[in-house]
């Protein structure tokens, strides 16, 4: 292909994006678009997979059978969400093994939120309510992404995520209406998870290296700050309703815009966590590697079984 052809094709591609068309796997796309998609989608898939770990370690300590089956189902959903998105990346010509290898080796990024510890049962409430709540806001926008397989994976995920949020909020509401100690536990969890959940939307667009390009190509449909504001406006009344307060003395309601305005977000903390120095980065990677290694015999047995059956089939024929 000559450079001339490529620039003509890029123009046609940009025109399709501008018309709001959906790009499908076999369509021609600029290499840069493909690369950005692989980066963003694989980070998203990794986040779903690592996201199982903070909650997974509370399954055996759930306070009732009802809570336990809910948490099990939620964690299983996160595994499914990871697979939906990995399946999307494979339509871009990437091998899933390669991406999983990067995650296990520690060279891939995933959402900074999962590098915080889950110290009490109330953290299961805070994660469902805040982390999944933030994810819903983010993913609802991504369901309109220009790349078809990504958008379709998001639609599937959003349908399931509402249960995650509600089970979390129910845990928080129950604790907040409980004994003073239970309410204090809920407030403590909110105090620890509120700021990291606001960081989930990424830095302000003016400081986000990839934001402008992703917006132009309609992979992202809304700015980080807009999505964050929507989440803040949704969540603060929910906290009020159950009698919890945000750990933000500067928080105020702006009557003119109707927005809740938070104090400044500590982006230095975000940078620390995203570059591997969060409280749980090493432990999460170690746990993920351990799970992968301990599952090796299952994958090997499945391969051996399939090979044996294939051989038997040939004998019979």
């Amino acid at each position, binding site marked *: 292909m000559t450079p001339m052809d490529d620039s003509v094709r890029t123009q046609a591609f940009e025109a399709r994006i501008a018309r709001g068309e959906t790009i499908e796997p076999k369509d021609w796309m600029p290499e840069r678009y493909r690369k950005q998609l692989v980066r963003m989608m694989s980070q998203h898939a990794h986040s779903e997979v690592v996201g199982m770990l903070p909650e997974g370690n509370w399954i055996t300590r759930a306070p009732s059978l009802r809570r336990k089956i809910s948490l099990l189902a939620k964690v299983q959903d996160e595994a499914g969400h990871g697979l939906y998105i990995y399946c999307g990346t494979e339509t871009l010509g990437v091998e899933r093994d390669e991406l999983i290898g990067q995650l296990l080796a520690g060279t891939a990024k995933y959402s900074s939120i999962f590098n915080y510890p889950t110290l009490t049962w109330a953290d299961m409430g805070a994660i469902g309510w805040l982390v999944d709540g933030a994810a819903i806001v983010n993913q609802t926008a991504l369901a309109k992404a220009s790349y078809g397989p990504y958008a379709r994976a998001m639609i599937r995920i959003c349908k*399931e995520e509402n249960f995650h949020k509600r089970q979390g909020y129910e845990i928080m509401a129950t604790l907040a209406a409980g004994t003073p100690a239970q309410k204090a536990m809920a407030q403590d969890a909110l105090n620890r998870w509120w700021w990291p959940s606001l960081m989930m939307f990424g830095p302000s667009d003016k400081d986000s290296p990839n934001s402008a390009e992703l917006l132009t190509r309609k992979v992202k449909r809304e700015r980080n700050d807009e999505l964050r504001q929507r989440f803040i406006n949704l969540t603060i009344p929910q906290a009020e309703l159950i009698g919890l307060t945000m750990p933000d003395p500067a928080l105020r309601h702006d009557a003119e815009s109707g927005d809740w305005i938070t104090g400044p977000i500590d982006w230095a903390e975000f940078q620390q966590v995203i570059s591997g120095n969060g409280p749980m980065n090493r432990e999460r990677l170690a746990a993920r590697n351990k799970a992968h290694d301990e599952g090796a015999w299952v994958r090997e047995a499945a*391969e051996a079984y399939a*090979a044996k059956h294939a051989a038997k089939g040939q004998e019979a024929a």
Partner: protein
Amino acid sequence: MKLWEVFTQAGHGAPHEHAGSVHAPDAELALQNARDVYARRGEAVNIWVVPSEAITASSPEDAGPFFDPGNDKPYRHPQFYKVPRGTKE
């Protein structure tokens, strides 16, 4: 591990629709994985799994000429035909 495309049927009488893909060493496990990944909430009454490599798809770049034979035949639509005013259908 082999890649399989998954098609789920949402209800009896509904068509099978592409849901996504799974990895599995054989068809039997592909079906079980497909159920666990794409039908955790009763989304399907039936599942097909097909080795991805067995699917031949038309090329988007040739979509124009490829579908052209069907695009210029208005006489295949009922609106092409005039019927007397007042006809009840």
